[in-house]
């Protein structure tokens, strides 16, 4: 299981939880797992988010591997100038 840290605005979709334990070995599996547990997160994830894995902000890579002890954060999507 990997601990996924959510931003606090998402708590309303997760019964108040800010950290959700999800099964998965890639970013994509984690996101799918999150939606399976808390379907309310689906529109948020579909509308575009960034994921930080061990301090690395990943914009697109659903296939990025995740270790059980990885630190995973969902973040607002970041655009640049």
């Amino acid at each position, binding site marked *: 299981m990997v601990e996924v840290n959510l931003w606090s605005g998402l708590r309303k979709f997760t019964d108040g939880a800010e950290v959700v334990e999800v099964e998965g070995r890639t970013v994509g599996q984690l996101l799918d797992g999150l939606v399976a547990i808390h379907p309310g997160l689906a*529109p948020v994830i579909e509308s575009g988010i960034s994921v930080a894995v061990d301090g*690395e902000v*990943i914009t*697109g890579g659903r296939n990025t591997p995740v270790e059980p002890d990885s630190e995973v954060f969902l973040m*607002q*999507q970041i*655009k*640049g*100038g």
Partner: protein
Amino acid sequence: MAKDEITKDFKWIGTTPDRPDGLDKVTGRARYGADFNLPNMLYAAVVRSPHAHAKILKIDASKALALKGVKAVVTRADLPTGLTGEDLYLQENTLAGEKALYDGHAVAAVAATSQLLANDAARLIEVEYEVLPHVTDVDKAMAKDAPVILPDCADHTVPEGMGPNVARMIEFGRGDLEAGYAEADVVHEQSYTTEATHQGYIEPHAAVGQMGSDGKGEMWVCTQGQWFIRKMCSAVLGTDPAQLRVTPSEIGGGFGGKTTIFMEPLPLALSRKAGGRPVKLVMSRSDVLRATGPTASASMDVKMGMKKDGTITAAEVTFRMQGGPFPGASPVGEALSCAFACYDIPNLMHVGYEVLANRPKCAAYRAPGSPMAAYAVESMVDELCRELSLDPIDVRLKNGVKEGSRASYGPKFKTIGLAETLEAAKAHPNYAVKLGPNQGRGVASGFWFNHGGETSVSLAISEDGTAQVSVGTPDIGGSRASIALMTAETLGIPYENVRVNIVETGALGVNEPTHGSRATFASGKAMWEAANQAIKEMCKRAAQKWDIDPEAVTWKDGAAHPAGDNAGQFEPMSIKEIAAEMGKTGGPISGHHESTPSGAGPSFGTHVVDVEVDPETGRVTVLRYLVTQDAGRAIHPQYVEGQYQGGAAQGIGWALNEGYIYGEDGKLQNSVFLDYRVPVASDLPMIDTVIVEVPNPGHPFGVRGVGETGITPPLPAIANAIHAATGARLRALPMNPPAVLAAIKAMA
């Protein structure tokens, strides 16, 4: 890559040779967006709404079409229906549908055999409007009784009971704010506002487009990202991206403003309607200011608690930003994530609202959101430092993030260089200059994430052992030079033997634009992978010739060498020798790499500015200016400095005199450079720089993006300096002379 694997011994990296495109750009030969013509070409003009918010009742183009030489008129009716989300907003912004949503919103476009004729024809297109109530101010747009711009714009994040223009709400934080404030010796709370500013690139948008009835098209355009142009134009026009070939011209500045589309689908739409004749469309400066993508205006609340020793115990922000009439355009998410990124604070809360307003659709502008956030937060830190008589650099060193700190937006930082920039600022002679009467010094730090993004690069060895690199990131500030330097370094060949080409969409896989400070980082990293592929192939060719195992060959100084004594005794085989025979030894030698690279390390910077304020007029003169910023590794130090200096200059403009001015009628009042006041040469001093190098472990040469961070600290640094000079605290931008004089008078 481990830190100790990053070498410091370079032959080319860190040197400052002439840029490859220098000659073209000093002789007038370089071809920008408007410098391109095709046979049988038509010229386009656009009809724009004179109203901030109006229902379009009728568009009558019959008089225009009756003019001899007018070949096509397009309106929204010529574009496909059924689009949703961002595609719909792009289409809506290209040509207004039922309503014009801001002053300057395009309503129709016309193509004719000359520019003058097209302009005449545009004036003959009659549009009937029903003017609607409008709102341009962000706080007024938040109100419950504000005019409705887009019905039901709110997404799932917006709580019940908000005003009709609130499109999105963001909330994140950690710790216990109340406990944090209870620990503090001083707690301050203030509000700040910033006005919208424009990137102000000197080259107006320009494109030549051609499209047949078969949907196949060509386009020449000034852009930061030819694939984005391809994707977005295709979406708006309902055509296939692969059928549109987009060639980027040289680009006369972008700063984020040329990462999206505004008028670009119009030449294609007009061409399609005019029997496939190519159509050229060039914006005027006024069009650029009214109808391209400035940054958001912001209204921001900050609360922060600090102990007597300078420890920040808790902080929170509420940001309200308008991004124009469509959701998703404001940088409020980025602003929140940047707000406290420089600080390690245990108790934090961020709240943000995206608000629609009758203003142009915002685009990215250099570190989108970060400068506004810094203006609020770095001003507040300064207010607390002054109240507690603490040195602003020491307080930032005390609270500043370092490797392993948990970022305000969640994850832990890897190797970063904020402390190094602060130390460099403190050690710089500018920080010790004694100031005279009416003079003051301001300090602020800033942050930008940096970005990897979809990247494709190919590299080919020529028959003579020189190399060409095809990249998809337009060269906006010297990236041909930096990529050529890294190529020379990787292959071990002279810099002059490398040619870097910025190629069209048909020549490579998808690339994101030159944005997010990614060109040198991402295209450079992909080039390195591609070059290593080519090197591997060249080692293989040498191994075949020597009849040894390919693994027993290494590459050094532009030649294949036997890996060691056991590999055999052979003279090194140079790239020139290998290339000369490549046709006979297995064919062309090249490499390519496609990825969405990770490892874009953030860049932190610290600025120190001295100003003098004329107490009788409120005029602020910038006396000296220092930028210290972490580049990771400066590939071509002059162009790194250039990014620092340019970012500082744009920030100074934003701080002092730039800003959109809307009248009561909702019309933009300053749509020319006379009144939209970017800094001129005589407004600025030399801008001193210190390139701090804390190598980024996510890049083979340690590169961090350097383009964006530099615009972030100037806004608060100047506000802090004005306060130091006058005692007046300016909490609204721009801090122009009337505002500064009024603030000084208000203290008396």
